[in-house]
């Protein structure tokens, strides 16, 4: 019998690749994989950003750009939505931040299964390539809307109903395979590879958010996977899972007896948890940004952790709030409205706790903190409109209007993006060993923050007026007053400004990478392990010969009587210190 050693006790060094290709291309180092994931995600995200700019041009100045036909508009809407939600945010927050942060923050050398972790990236890249290829197939990408509802997703008349939709479904299936390979690593690493002293209740909130979000992904993506397979079959070999009997252009289609509503259930059984797959990592990260830059322990750490877990669990029983107007049984509406409003409770607790962490803190308004506070604003606004839409009777008139567009952009578009920016500014010094430029960072923040309000606040007003979403142009519609056209022009100017302002961000990052001043290993005076690596940027294997040992939680800021205003997690308790054990 061999004796069992935990990963933290295993002192054998990792296998270090020698060649450049082994280090940076076929790399099994979680940090390199994280960078590969992030760059790919941001790259494809830029495509989505350009598409949104084009849509805004069409909405403000209908017909001005002649290549934006109605078909093209639908294709842009669809690709924009899908890329933003899945290929940008999910991939960046879990594949990017999850990969980079998990081993570092829990004190591991790497993920438990680095080879599969590497495969995860390459399969993800393949899914992105398939998705981008759909721009070039006959008929172009699908224009079915990011929800891909059948029957219209695969019936004639919808752009991309032939090739485009198949490419989309294939790409999604590939993405899910990639996500599963990465996700298994993230979850298992958190469960089984923590260093000595790193109890679950000493993990930084970032890890909690990423961990629970990954579990959601592993349980929610299966529904999308199955839906993708069934729709592919409907489309290619003529099965009728989702297709009822249909007469199209006076011709009866070769389908009968399927259930379109089934697709909606499967899609949203994935789709709603997906919102939290994006939101929970953001919740976790922002908690750490706020605590670090306010020099205070996060208010109610235990409550924050439990709120993440409870939100994650509840997110599986609210999906049909996206289907109030689908014609499902009205009693379902009652159930799903209730569960939806219950989720608001742990969510509100989190918001209160962020604000209470700031309360009388020693707030340093550095750029990451600006974005963190910006997030609190945008998230509260998006959350409040969510209460409107969660109620059946209020949702019915607002459904499929610009109110919905305003709501979800605030809550799951802008808010996580704010955190992503904050997190990049926060960890950039550790990842690159260089410091970014403060002035540029502040300019980036203020333009983005004020800009998104200029974009999305008016959309709520448009929604109240009844302006429908996914419309190519409003034309001379009687109920649409002149002010709508004016608002649309204003929104577009703001959107293009915000889009252009991202150039400041990229310039800042690229310039600082080469020319920025050398960064301190722990510039913010943070307590968590990733700041305590022997090298900056951390080397392969992260810790040198010995893993760090953890003695306290990650939030010992401004402890009375301590020499500094922070105590790293690796500092043993002092002689007369009662350990703050969680």
């Amino acid at each position: 019998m061999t004796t069992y050693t935990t990963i933290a006790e295993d002192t054998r060094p990792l296998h270090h690749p020698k060649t450049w290709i082994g280090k940076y291309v076929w790399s099994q180092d979680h940090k390199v994989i994280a960078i590969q994931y992030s760059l790919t995600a941001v790259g494809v995200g830029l495509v989505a950003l350009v598409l949104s700019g084009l849509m805004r041009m069409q909405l403000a100045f209908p017909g001005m750009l002649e290549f934006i036909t109605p078909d093209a508009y639908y294709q842009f809407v669809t690709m924009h939505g899908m890329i933003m939600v899945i290929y940008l945010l999910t991939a960046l927050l879990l594949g990017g931040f999850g990969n980079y942060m998990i081993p570092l923050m829990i004190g591991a050398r790497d993920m438990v299964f680095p080879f599969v972790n590497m495969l995860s990236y390459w399969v993800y890249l393949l899914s992105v390539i398939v998705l981008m290829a759909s721009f070039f197939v006959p008929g172009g990408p699908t224009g079915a809307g990011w929800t891909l509802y059948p029957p219209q997703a695969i019936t004639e008349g919808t752009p991309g109903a032939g090739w485009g939709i198949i490419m989309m479904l294939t790409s999604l299936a590939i993405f899910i395979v990639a996500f599963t390979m990465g996700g298994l690593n993230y979850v298992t690493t958190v469960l089984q590879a923590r260093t000595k002293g790193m109890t679950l209740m000493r993990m930084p909130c970032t890890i909690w958010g990423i961990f629970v979000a990954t579990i959601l992904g592993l349980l929610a993506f299966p529904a999308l996977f199955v839906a993708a397979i069934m729709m592919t079959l409907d489309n290619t070999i003529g099965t009728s899972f989702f297709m009822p009997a249909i007469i199209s252009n006076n011709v009866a289609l070769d389908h009968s007896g399927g259930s379109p509503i089934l697709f909606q259930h499967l899609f949203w059984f994935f789709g709603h948890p997906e919102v939290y797959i994006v939101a929970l990592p953001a919740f976790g990260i922002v908690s750490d940004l706020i605590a670090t830059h306010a020099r205070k322990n996060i208010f109610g750490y235990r409550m924050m952790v439990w709120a993440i877990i409870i939100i994650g669990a509840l997110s599986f029983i609210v999906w049909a709030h996206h289907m109030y107007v689908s014609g499902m049984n009205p009693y379902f509406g009652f159930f799903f409205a209730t569960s939806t409003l219950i989720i608001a409770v742990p969510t509100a607790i989190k918001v209160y706790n962020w604000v209470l962490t700031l309360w009388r803190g020693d707030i340093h308004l550095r750029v990451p903190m600006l974005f963190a506070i910006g997030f609190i604003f945008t998230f509260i606004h998006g959350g409040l409109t969510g209460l409107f839409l969660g109620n059946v009777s209020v949702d019915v008139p607002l459904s499929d209007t610009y109110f919905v567009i305003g709501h979800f952009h605030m809550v799951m578009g802008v808010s996580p993006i704010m955190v992503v920016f904050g997190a990049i500014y926060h960890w950039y010094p550790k990842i690159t060993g260089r410091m970014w430029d403060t002035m540029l960072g502040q300019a980036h923040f203020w333009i983005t923050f004020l800009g998104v309000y200029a974009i999305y606040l008016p959309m709520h007003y448009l929604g109240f007026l009844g302006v429908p979403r996914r419309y190519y142009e409003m034309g001379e519609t009687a109920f649409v007053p002149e002010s709508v056209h004016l608002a649309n022009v204003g929104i577009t100017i703001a959107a293009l400004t915000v889009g252009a302002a991202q150039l400041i961000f990229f310039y800042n990052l690229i310039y600082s990478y080469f020319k920025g001043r050398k960064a301190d290993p722990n510039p913010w005076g943070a307590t968590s392990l990733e700041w305590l690596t022997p090298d900056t940027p951390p080397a392969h294997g992260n810790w040198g010969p010995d893993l760090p040992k953890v003695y306290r939680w990650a939030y010992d800021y401004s402890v009375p009587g301590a020499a500094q205003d922070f105590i790293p997690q690796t500092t043993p308790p002092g002689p007369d210190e009662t350990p703050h054990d969680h």
Partner: protein
Amino acid sequence: MSQNTHVATEPHSLETLVSDWSTDQEVFKKVQWGKAMMWIFLLSDTFIFSCFLTSYMTVRATTMVAWPNPSEVFALTLFGENIPLILIAIMTFVLISSSGTMALAVNFGYRRNRKATAYLMLATALLGATFVGMQAFEWSKLIAEGVRPWGNPFGAPQFGASFFMITGFHGFHVSIGVIYLTIIALRVLNGVYDRNGKYEVVEITGLYWHFVDLVWVFIFAFFYLW
């Protein structure tokens, strides 16, 4: 190795559960990471099969045409007798038996019996391959009778669609399992795990195999018996 110094005056079961789980290093003590990872994967895969089966039940309920009678469609004429569900009964028996040989393999693995482990795993793989072979036979029989994913002579077109999709997806799992078992069995035979001491790989393979069997029981119940 809890860092927590809880002096429990009376048993707080929920609290001790949480504090046991949240100790350092590992949630599941002395569980090799690969085993934990396989469990998590199977949990995710369970959701895939649940979605398939739920969808099948939904379309069976929504379709307007009568559902074919499984005991007629899945009957086989043997020795001049028409026996309902006979093929599927044999297939199920074969697959369940393979779970038995797998369990034995795991047991011999932990006793470090290299040869017995490897041969039992190969036997498991062989039974699995037999299952896939019989499934291929069943498919070709149904196809010969005119059952297609888009329609069939017996009733609702969703019958063929769900049948080929779900048994196909399961058969794919079995085939992967056969390959997986063979590879690990050969590695056992070569003494790889005697050298690195990681005999739990056999158990991990077993987890996957038992899962595939368990799923079959559900498919069998929902598809053939309902």
